[in-house]
């Protein structure tokens, strides 16, 4: 049972593709492996130290896009927002600027590491936080529901047989984007607590052994599931056993990596900064992870938004700036792309409480060493609105498609169900 699994993994990692050798494996050999065993070749790719990494950063609550990428020269903007308009943005050009708190991002724009995609949304926008978040997480049409996430479908279609840590979410919850047919991806907030503390028992060795033996496949029926050929479906116990096994297998590695790797760059205080710091350390330590997921909450600014939005964007800017500096000093910036998203932007006109209600399309950021900088999409019109909201010009799945196809180099259709035009930011 787990012995088979263990042996199989070891075989893939050490014998067949052999540790360090696999990172410099010649292309023709890799192709051979593809023809021999697609899963094995994929594993080789994942463990490589130069494969691309995607970091997804969720701005939860609905970030006010108009006060993030500000159309300061547009009269309609000033008219719609008499008390909360940003009048002194950091200019990108004659009509657009970034919120004054985004000085770090403004610098990345000059350094050629930042792409801004404008007017991102989807047809028939939903103004519910939960439904719209679900639509972004599952990449479904607004009138369809999907239970699996877009990242989960990437795991299913491209990461069969791989390490469970191919996806890492920083936090105690697993995002819906990770929901997969064959569950993958691990979550944790604090690496020091991400292990079984057997030393608290009177016989740590026995307890450790016992813990390992009950938290792995403990009956014949689960063997197939662990091999990835007969995915666990529905059953609560299968799900729990699978999670227990993934936790057990990943925790040693995570702990070892985070214990030895330190950041050379100082990070500001705050949750987002510590999440990104952890991601940077995991990248530096060579985790086989291809997608990291982090989140920052609090963007639901219905009232008195000026101060709170300023604080949120300030935290975001400081955390991302430290992260980029860290990756640069590691020499890893070229292989990391970070994408922000929020479930929706906000209504163009401010409300009576010095805030903004739920809206629709908004800009998002893609940044990293391999990003082609600049402004993408068209600047949204503030007079041609639908229900008081900005109309989208870029489908968010075009952003996903671009990252899947041109960054992670995987086919888009099995993941997004159909093709979407890609955008040239990577």
């Amino acid at each position: 049972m787990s012995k088979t699994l263990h042996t199989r993994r070891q075989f893939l990692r050490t014998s067949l593709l052999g540790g360090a050798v696999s990172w410099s494996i010649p292309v023709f050999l890799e192709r051979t492996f593809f023809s021999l065993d697609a899963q094995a070749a994929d594993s080789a790719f994942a463990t490589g130290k130069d494969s691309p990494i995607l970091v997804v950063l969720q701005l939860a609550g609905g970030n006010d896009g108009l006060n993030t990428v500000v159309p300061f020269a547009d009269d309609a903007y000033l008219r719609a927002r008499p008390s909360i308009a940003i009048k002194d943005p950091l200019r990108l050009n004659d009509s657009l600027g970034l919120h004054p708190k985004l000085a770090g991002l403004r610098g990345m724009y000059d350094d050629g590491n930042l792409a801004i995609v404008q007017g991102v949304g989807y047809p028939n926008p939903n103004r519910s936080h939960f439904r719209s978040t679900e639509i972004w997480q599952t990449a479904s049409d607004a009138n369809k529901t999907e239970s699996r996430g877009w990242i989960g479908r990437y795991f299913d279609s491209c990461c069969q047989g791989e390490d469970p840590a191919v996806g890492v979410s920083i936090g105690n919850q697993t995002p819906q984007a990770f929901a997969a047919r064959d569950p993958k991806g691990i979550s944790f907030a604090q690496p020091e607590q991400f292990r079984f503390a057997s030393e608290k028992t009177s016989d740590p060795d026995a307890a450790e052994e016992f813990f390992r033996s009950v938290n792995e496949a403990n009956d014949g029926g689960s063997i197939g599931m662990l091999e990835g050929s007969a995915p666990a479906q529905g059953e609560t116990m299968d799900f729990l056993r699978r999670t227990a096994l993934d936790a057990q297998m990943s925790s040693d590695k995570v702990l070892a990596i985070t214990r030895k790797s330190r950041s050379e760059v100082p990070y500001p205080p705050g949750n987002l900064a510590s999440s990104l710091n952890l991601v940077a350390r995991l990248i530096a330590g060579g985790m086989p992870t291809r997608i990291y997921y982090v989140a920052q909450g609090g963007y639901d600014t219905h009232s008195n938004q000026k101060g709170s939005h300023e604080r949120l964007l300030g935290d975001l800017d400081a955390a991302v700036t430290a992260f980029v500096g860290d990756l640069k000093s590691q020499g890893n910036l070229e292989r990391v792309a970070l994408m922000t998203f929020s479930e929706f932007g906000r209504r163009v006109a401010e409300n009576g409480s010095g805030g903004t209600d739920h809206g629709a399309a908004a800009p998002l950021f893609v940044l990293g060493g391999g990003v082609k900088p600049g402004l993408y999409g068209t600047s949204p019109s503030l007079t041609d609105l639908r229900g008081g909201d900005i109309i989208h010009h870029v489908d968010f799945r075009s952003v996903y498609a671009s990252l899947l196809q041109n960054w992670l180099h995987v086919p888009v259709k099995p993941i997004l169900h159909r093709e979407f035009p890609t955008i040239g930011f990577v």
Partner: protein
Amino acid sequence: MLERLDNEGWTPSAAAHLLNRAGFGGSPEAITSLHARGLGGAVEALLSEASDDDLFPPPAMIPRDLEALKKATSTASPEEKKKIQTAVTRENREQTSLLRRWWLDRMRWSPLGAREKATLFWHGHWATSIEKVKEPFAMWQQNETLRAYAFGPFEQMAREISRDPAMMRYLDLTQSKKGKPNENFARELMELFTVGEGHYSEDDIQQAARAFTGYRVNPKTQQFLFARRQFDDGTKSFFGFEGPFSGDDVIGFLVADPQCSKFLASKLWVFYAGSPPSPRLLTELAERYRALHLDTGEFLREIFQSREFYSPAVVRRQIKGPIQWLVQLCRQMEIALPPDSDQILRQLGQIPFAPPNVKGWDGGRAWISSATLLQRYNTAGNILARGKPNWQALGANATPSLVWRLFQSPLPPDLNQKFADYLGEHGSGSAALRDLVHLMLSTPDYQIT
């Protein structure tokens, strides 16, 4: 009526299941005595347990006079102002912590715990967080309203909650006025509290928002206040009706909509039974809830006596939420809640009075990630070490009696064997028993109920 469980089905395991789901579980003795009452008697006992308010005096809390506070800060120097704010923050933190402890203790020590469990359901339903509300007094008041209506008529509960200062602050109702209605409460009222997403239009939201204008909180007493001059008394069209509707009218229309009983029946079933009902069962549940005029206590009486509730698809198929996990563990082991329960629940992802957002907790599989699973295992060890259960009382033949105490159902044979082997190798002293229980709790099997 839902089909009733027959007498043969009322076994000690069924009684344990009922106690686990309707409440927070209990000791083997509690299960035995519930079983002895028979199914009808047991359900009656759970639903009509006498009020135990006197046993759980709330933490001493008085409403903060926000008017006086505002006055004090407006004339204060910057340093004084900072001092006042720091004191307020500290006091709020302390009071919130006392409030949490008070409610958790109530869950732990209430003899049967069903009313507290239902209060927890409604807290997740009418999700409101201290993080935004800031005032512990308002959170406590809301908690008492949820408790008072936990087994009562839904419509009245909805009206009370629309006037609840904590909810009003949480969803910006206090800022909504004629000409400038704030949509936040009106939207969530429909999307999350009554009919569910997709069963109303954007226009319904805007019209309903107008009907809920003028709701205010008296800054001195922290009680609801209706500011007639801020109320939009114009004609609204809502759900096909037209008139100068009030907020209560809107609630009336929503509750009368068949979609409301369907939405709530499904949510109640998921909370108590663990997974979404089949379409056939949902139709039946929604019809019953509606026939009972959305009286939640009457509805739960039928659910708890139904055959469906004791079916293999329901029993031991629910992932425990963190509060359930913690309270049930302490009830089963007959120990007090650990002093750092707050901290534990924060790590496990369910902080009372601070749901993550207005949708409440997702529940089910969302409770479990590789992180929270390992944290549960480790926390269990700490709780046992500090809670000091009476190990010797567990006595001989420990494995089977511990399995009954903790799982109330047979485990996979190989797991049972591993438990027995462990004790065989380590003897049955207190340390070995404690380790064994810790290991029993450090299994996927312990995470379900």
